[in-house]
């Protein structure tokens, strides 16, 4: 049915808004792309820049699989328009390793077997990187609370918390 939405779309089909050029610094590289205004940062990363490490889970800000760092802060890329991030520095899971060395969080997730299917993992790791930078979580309870925006359907939570604790101790 989708009555109102469908009706509005028909009356508007004749004038599709133009695409807009956007500059983003993604994982240290300057990227210039041209996107429709409604392109989310998530879709820009995956479909325009072929950075498919960032996952689309719910696409509604409810699961955290799309978490990336924008200017050092963790956000949901599915609820962010790419055009709004003109000039921003984006870090995705592909940008965490340095010179072939895994990021401490990536190594900790391996050490603690902190994933099963792996679909939420890039979001978990980017979120944990943001969490460590914020410096608000000290205890396991606080890690659980401040990581609650990342859902793991496999239920690897105890191992995820242990992995984050390891990375926090070494950072």
């Amino acid at each position: 049915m989708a009555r109102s939405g469908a009706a509005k779309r028909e009356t508007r089909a004749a004038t599709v808004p133009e695409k807009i050029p956007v500059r983003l610094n993604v994982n240290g590289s300057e990227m210039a792309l041209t996107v429709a205004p409604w392109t989310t940062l998530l879709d820009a990363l995956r479909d325009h820049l072929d950075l498919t490490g960032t996952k689309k889970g719910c696409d509604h800000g409810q699961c955290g699989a799309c978490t990336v760092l924008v200017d050092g802060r963790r956000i949901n890329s599915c609820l962010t328009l790419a055009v709004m991030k003109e000039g921003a520095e984006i870090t995705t899971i592909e940008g965490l390793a340095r010179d072939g060395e895994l990021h401490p969080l990536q190594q900790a997730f391996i050490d603690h077997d902190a994933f099963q299917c792996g679909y939420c993992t890039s979001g978990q790791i980017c979120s944990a990187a943001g969490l460590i930078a914020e410096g608000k979580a000290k205890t396991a309870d606080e890690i659980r609370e401040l990581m609650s925006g990342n859902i793991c359907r496999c239920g690897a939570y105890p191992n995820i918390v242990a992995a984050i604790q390891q990375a926090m101790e070494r950072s």
Partner: protein
Amino acid sequence: MTPFQYARASDVADAIKQIATDPSARFIAGGTNLLDLIKYDVTAPTKLIDISRLPLGNVEQTATGGVMIGALVPNSDLAYHPLIEERYPLLSRAILAGASQQLRNMASTGGNLVQRTRCFYFYDATTPCNKREPGSGCSAVDGINRINAILGTSESCIATHPSDMCVALAAIEAIVHVTGPAGTRTIAIADFHRLPGNTPQRDTNLEPDEIITAVELPPKGFSANYSYLKIRDRLSYAFALVSVAAALELDGDTIKDARVALGGVAHKPWRSSAAEVVLRGQRADASAFANAADILLRGARGFGHNDFKIGLARRAIVRTLSQAARGTPQSISDKKIR
């Protein structure tokens, strides 16, 4: 998403000018609610006006001893701001009880105020909903209404306002500063959100061509005796079934001033001046709190699945006021309710 145009506002005056020329345009700041609504086909603006770069990002003390919060201050920055943590810890705790850190990093102070009310049917564009399509009927009254309102409802709508931040702002009696074509004005937080009545499509008294520029906190922050208790279906990252913001000013055991605001139970943060008046001069104990709870919940009505909220709210009010009186506010991370 339904296609829309995009433009950036260069300053507040430009933002107002742009929205005036296009009634179906919307401002976007954090986007956490608006983009979700567009994806669900609940709303379909023709144009988004990006206000996220406007210079409304400061938190400053006012000359009268309060605090002025810029409308674009992210929820996370506000919750952790030293002035808020020290002087308005109730607000800090309430913000941290809401959403996730990712969303709090994106969501703005002004955007939190104008997030749409919640109801499964409002978000499901295939069902009748008076809020989404005025006159089409309410699917929730006889539907799955576990999350819906018990106070201030109308035949048209039983949706709830989902904000935690606004519940604390209601208790603190914040003032919303807005600018429109006619100039600036202020709106008391109690008058900002609306009850559904027969116009549930309007959540707030902000005019479509107005923009929120700041939220002002009065000097009194109740930093000694406060608590924010949020009851939900999981321990974090879920909307409130019932939440309570309690703030007390005590003289020994005697209540000098009291504020109680409820979340998750109405179309707006719910307060009762009668309940607060009756607390003044009383000994801060469970019987006084239970009496206040009964007054706050006067007229409460369930719709089947949400009947439990009435009893839950009553107990939550007593518990939260007790926590406030003891000076032991509900912890954010330790989920035990003491």
